[in-house]
């Protein structure tokens, strides 16, 4: 898949997510029928709503930050690190960037760059704590990032108070950071005609992150070391990878990308970090990274699918169907997609062993790793 574009292999790679999605939708259909709603109507409403240009623009915008979040998670995944803390990292990063952006009077573009850098630095710092704890104290990053998420929630609650970083938003009882000056706001791109709204300008950054992720991983020595560590930490050590350093660096990178997650929203739409800044994007990122198999293009499709489900379901409440049906679809997709990938992996392994056996003539020696052979 990485080196040769073999149609058979790509087809096999697509089988798993498609099957999983079909399975998840089937579950949703059953749930809808049981609770007395018409599945066909529900799906039709979602599709109709999603075919409106405005919804499409919303889908692209949502997919933009989902994509960033999923890439942040995927960097960790590639070396078997579970950065569950993307959620806390991006929120803290966005708050810091918003506070800087609203209070520093630099010329527009420089201020934008500054905010982005601050966001990346804060995200990296927050994930770096987990990286250091893992590398030097052996603390599982799963637990530490969950703790750090909760701590960042508390810190944000503390800082986002009038008199600290927040001001009262005019005409509402919402509070948020001081709005970013007009000159530092990133203009949108009129990508979808007749949408009545533009697409985040920072979609460029998301695309750049995707390309960078792909190149770094597949074309550089660092990327090789990272993937080698993910495949087998012991083999990586024996090959000269400094695993401790690698753990910290991978966590820092993941956190830096996580820091970007809130930027399209902050610089392209809300212009301030307020109480209603989107939350939970980090967990969505985990799901999408799994769906997209940590592959830069796969993640893009996953992000679009997720955004489609989220945005098109907005119509359902108006029609009397609980829109949480979509969360059920999403949860079921994650679970069934990982199962489907595992089944495809086993199938492939057996297939490959058979091919090797065929190519070399049957020998009596079974392959060394029997995990696939004993199915």
């Amino acid at each position, binding site marked *: 898949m990485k080196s040769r574009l073999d149609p058979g292999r790509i087809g096999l790679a697509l089988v798993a997510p498609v099957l999983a999605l079909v399975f998840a939708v089937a579950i949703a259909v059953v749930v809808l029928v049981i609770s007395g709603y018409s599945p066909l109507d529900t799906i039709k409403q979602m599709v109709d709503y999603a075919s409106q240009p405005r919804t499409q623009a919303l889908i692209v915008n949502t997919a933009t930050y989902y994509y960033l979040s999923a890439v942040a998670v995927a960097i960790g995944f590639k070396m078997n690190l579970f950065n569950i803390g993307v959620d806390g990292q991006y929120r803290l990063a966005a708050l810091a960037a918003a506070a800087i952006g609203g209070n520093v009077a630099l010329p527009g573009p420089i201020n934008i760059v500054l905010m982005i850098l601050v966001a990346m630095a804060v995200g990296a710092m927050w994930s770096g704590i987990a990286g250091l704890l893992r590398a030097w104290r*052996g603390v599982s990053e799963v637990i530490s990032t969950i703790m750090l998420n909760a701590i960042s929630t*508390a810190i944000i609650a503390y800082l986002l108070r009038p008199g600290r970083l927040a001001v009262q938003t005019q005409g509402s009882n919402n509070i948020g950071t001081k709005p970013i000056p007009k000159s530092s706001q990133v203009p949108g791109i009129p990508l979808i005609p007749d949408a009545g709204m533009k697409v985040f300008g920072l979609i460029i950054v998301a695309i750049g992150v995707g390309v960078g992720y792909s190149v770094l991983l597949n074309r550089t020595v660092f990327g090789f070391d990272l993937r080698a560590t993910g495949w087998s930490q012991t083999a990586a050590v024996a090959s000269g990878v400094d695993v401790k350093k690698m753990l910290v660096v991978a966590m820092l990178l993941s956190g830096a990308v996580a820091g970007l997650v809130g930027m399209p929203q902050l610089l392209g739409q809300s212009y301030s970090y307020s109480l209603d800044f989107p939350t939970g994007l980090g967990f969505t990122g985990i799901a999408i990274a799994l769906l997209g198999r940590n592959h830069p293009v796969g993640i893009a499709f996953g992000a679009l699918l997720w955004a489609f489900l989220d945005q098109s379901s907005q119509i359902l409440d108006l029609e009397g169907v609980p829109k949480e049906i979509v969360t059920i679809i999403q949860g079921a997709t994650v679970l069934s997609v990982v199962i489907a990938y595992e089944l495809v992996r086993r199938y492939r392994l057996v297939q490959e062993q058979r091919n090797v056996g065929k190519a070399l003539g049957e020998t009596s020696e079974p392959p060394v790793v029997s995990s696939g052979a004993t199915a």
Partner: protein
Amino acid sequence: MSAITSTDTSPAPAGRSEGKRASRTSLRFIALAVLGLIVLLSVVRQVSGATDLTAAGAISAALALAVPIAMAGLGGLWSERAGVVNIGLEGMMILGTWGAGWAGYQWGPWAGLVAAIIFGAIGGLLHAIATVIFTVDHIVSGVAINILALGATQYLSKALFEGKPGGSTKQSPPVHDMGRFSVPGIGDPLGSLERHHWFLVSDVAGILRGLLTNLSWITILAILLFPLTYWVLWRTAFGLRLRSCGESPVAAESLGINVYRTKIVAVVVSGGLAGIGGAALALAASNFYQEGQTGGRGYIGLAAMIFGNWRPGLLAAGSGLFGFSDALQLRGGGSVHALLLLVAIVVVLVGLWQLYRRRVAQGIIAVASGVIVLVYYLVSDEVPAELTGAVPYVTTLLVLALASQRLRMPAADGLAYRRGQGS
């Protein structure tokens, strides 16, 4: 999450078959530790004047708040002792709260408890199928279950609770109270003793009154589940087999043990226990299901289990600690501030112990953190309300950072196992 945590070279805690001497020593140790903690609490109460530290109300609240965490942790213990990492406890707990609310408002609290167990167990079964049969990464499956549980309960609430009397899209109609239990005849005398604020005596009275009166039945059930778990896992044949799946599934299978079945049973039990934790929230701590009621306690339970070193006794202690800090925070006042003093003293003591054991780096870090906390205690009058919520999480991180090297998880915990994998 398996690779680095375990150093695996320190001898494991004394095998219980080594005889009664070991258990007697550890009993004496526990007794001493409890005594020391009570004395410490009394001192801090005297110094800081925060009477709430050992008030029966606070202790009782701490116990009630510890139960959900303890149940999640116990669930984690069952699952991880069988080799399955269970980060889906949060989701199973959510299912438990919802099941308790749904069955509870219709058929009474006891039906609610049963439904909570069943709902949690269903979550566990899902996790078991994914991880054991399909060898999906345990954490991935857990995360998926958390998402799924949240979505399912939100959907079901909208579909089933909205429009019912007292119910809404985010809340179930109220459930009748289960009733409470007190050890007869001790409440009043202990209460009057407590009001004198005598050093140590009043503290002990307060603690006892908190622990022995006005207990929810679910709390009692939870407390009983600890010795039961110990007995099952460490004394019975079934327990030995279960633990062997977490230590060396290959060896277990080679002796004819059905590893898949054992693991599935363990994870289903794990889900049921998390469900009880959910019931404690929905039936004892309040009297309805509410969205977001678990508030991450499933994760905290997992953390309590980890720094309980995958053993029930230490897990109970860890849960108690979380419950205590939660309770003080809920009751407000100066007691959280006073808790800082307690934390400072404990951390400094731990640091000194580390120095005594010649673990210089850890020792210095611990003493320094203790001193920082102490200074903060001295210069401040209160802890900002927003930050007190972070106390359990910071504590967890600190404890893990200081103690993780001494922890030993089951050798095959979190690893995929497939039938016939042994060579």
